[in-house]
């Protein structure tokens, strides 16, 4: 397997400024792109097998072809909402190499005849928003974007940063557009899809930060080379953010088909406590959980599907055998209950209901009837809602209860959590002591 680094090659200490980026060969891909017919750029991206890194894994090239031929203006929205629990990769692109993203945006806009792009970044990322603002100011000042894209083409491009204000749902693409329009983040009914009817009713492409940061490399090295780095129908490398009970948490750039067990046991050094891995959430909190004995799988989206889960946003959460599964699931259920926008009844009512029942079981007040209910509720939500948050809330509940049913039964029969004060595991707060405080955010 190749060790090629695309996204992290300049992390974390290299100069993120325009001068630093250019010294390392930056903006050459934009120059190359400006000499190509736009359709040829789209073809290159199609050939690269680049798939969306925001969670759904949709083919980027294919998405781009959905734009209706003759409707203008068209818009680009870049999704930097990064709110799926366990996910923490896009922030580092914004901090450590923002020009790579801006170059990707510039190429994308040229390829798709788009003249206005909004980077929507979650409100809590103040430092990252500042880094992007600085980067965009530099790009304007250097004439890379603005009235003349790349300094020569007769092509205007404006790029702006829009900050969210605290709402997970605004990562969902249609809610994101509502938020860019200055409204509360209520997801829209689909179809029509954003490529047809998007921002201000116009055709809009929405892509994740990591997705677009790959574009300069694809232009420079060719779609085929990118495809060859990956596996199956997924090209390139991916950023995996590993958190929880591992010795070396952080962001790892690995080929798209990398093995999950290897990532956890070798790259991250296994659990911080040395205890066995009990559970792994492989792709953000909405992906179905895996038991410790099920993690010997490829992270490639189609491959991991056969293990009944998804690598979604690349957020891997590891729990050792001292963590209470009821505690963990109840916290996940709380998240979805708090973040439901309330538009659809099954989601608005179902998510707090699941949370309340799980807390009741964790407290030792649950009954077998509650367990039956918690097994039934996810099915009543899935597929019944406007947006995928409903499914996202249902999948963890379904999978935790299925895979760790004995723990739920134990809580009910034993009238409480045997872990007591240590429901969050023995390693909590002790990582400093175990690894000497030597933590790096990035590998």
């Amino acid at each position, binding site marked *: 397997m190749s060790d090629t680094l695309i996204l992290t090659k300049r992390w974390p200490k290299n100069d993120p400024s325009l001068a630093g980026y250019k010294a390392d060969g930056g903006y050459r891909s934009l120059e190359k792109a400006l000499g190509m017919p736009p359709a040829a750029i789209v073809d290159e991206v199609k050939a690269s097998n680049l798939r969306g890194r925001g969670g759904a894994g949709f083919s980027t090239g294919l998405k781009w072809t959905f734009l209706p031929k003759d409707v203008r203006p068209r818009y680009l929205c870049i999704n930097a909402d990064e709110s799926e629990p366990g996910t923490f990769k896009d922030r580092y692109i914004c901090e450590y190499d923002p020009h790579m993203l801006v170059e990707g945006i510039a190429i994308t806009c040229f390829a798709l005849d788009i003249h206005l792009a909004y980077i929507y970044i979650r409100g809590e990322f103040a430092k990252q928003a500042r880094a992007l603002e600085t980067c965009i100011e530099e790009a304007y000042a250097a004439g890379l974007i603005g009235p003349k894209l790349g300094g020569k083409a007769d092509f205007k491009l404006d790029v702006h940063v829009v900050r969210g204000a605290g709402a997970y749902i605004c990562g969902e693409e249609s809610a994101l557009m509502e938020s860019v329009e200055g409204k509360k983040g209520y997801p829209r009914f689909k179809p029509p899809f954003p490529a047809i009817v998007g921002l201000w009713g116009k055709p809009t492409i929405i892509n994740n930060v990591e997705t677009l940061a790959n574009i300069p490399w694809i232009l420079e090295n060719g779609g085929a080379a990118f495809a060859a780095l990956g596996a199956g129908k997924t090209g390139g490398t991916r950023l995996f953010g590993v958190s929880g009970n591992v010795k070396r948490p952080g962001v790892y750039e690995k080929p798209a088909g990398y093995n999950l067990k290897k990532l956890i046991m070798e790259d991250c050094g296994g659990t911080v406590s040395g205890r066995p891995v009990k559970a792994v959430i492989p792709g953000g909190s909405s992906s179905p959980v895996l038991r410790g004995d099920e993690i010997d799988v490829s992270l490639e989206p189609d491959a991991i599907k056969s293990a009944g889960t998804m690598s979604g946003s690349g957020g891997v959460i590891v729990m050792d055998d001292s963590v209470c599964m009821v505690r963990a699931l109840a916290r996940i259920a709380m*998240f979805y209950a708090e973040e439901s926008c309330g538009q659809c009844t099954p989601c608005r009512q179902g998510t707090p209901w699941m949370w309340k029942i799980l807390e009741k079981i964790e407290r030792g007040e649950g009954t077998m009837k509650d367990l039956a209910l918690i097994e039934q509720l996810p099915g009543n939500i899935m597929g019944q809602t406007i947006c995928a948050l409903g499914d996202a809330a249902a999948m963890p509940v379904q999978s935790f209860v299925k895979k760790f049913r004995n723990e739920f039964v134990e809580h009910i029969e034993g009238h409480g959590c045997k872990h007591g004060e240590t429901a969050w595991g023995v390693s909590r707060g002790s990582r400093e002591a175990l690894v000497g405080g030597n933590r790096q955010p990035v590998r």
Partner: protein
Amino acid sequence: MAHHDESSADSGPQAIADLPRDKVARFDAALPEILKRYPPDHQEAAMLAALRRAQEIFGWLSPGAQKLVADRLGAPVTRAEEVATFYVMYHTRPVGRHVVEVCTNVSCSLGGGYDLFEDLKKKLGVDNGETTKDGRITLRQVECLGSCGTAPVILVDEEMHESLTPQSVERILGALL
């Protein structure tokens, strides 16, 4: 999301005229910079950014501040209210001089985030969403902050602090006046 606090929006400025003049002037001066990011026919899109700026200037989004933002964007007041109450980073009740927000989602709690939040509640003598009696700190529990690899994580006045230990939290909070 609920703010459990005794202090209420009723006690704040109710109308634009109740807002301090100098602060209104500062808001008006900041507005063009915000508006220029949006197409001329879509200036209402500036709602989120304008509310953020208003909150920075007035401290919280009182009914008067919400009315000011709506007025300047030519939007109905209900639009400003709707947005101000939808997003958790907007304060529609008065808050302390500092806002401390602790992530208690899974990755953070596996690294001590839940324990940290419980300790702070005890230490500050407040519950979730409440402000200390001296008006110094409002404490809140928040969702995943997108920094799970450096758990536990808190926000202090919207700036992130990562890889925390009980000692570093003590230091950070101690510096808040």
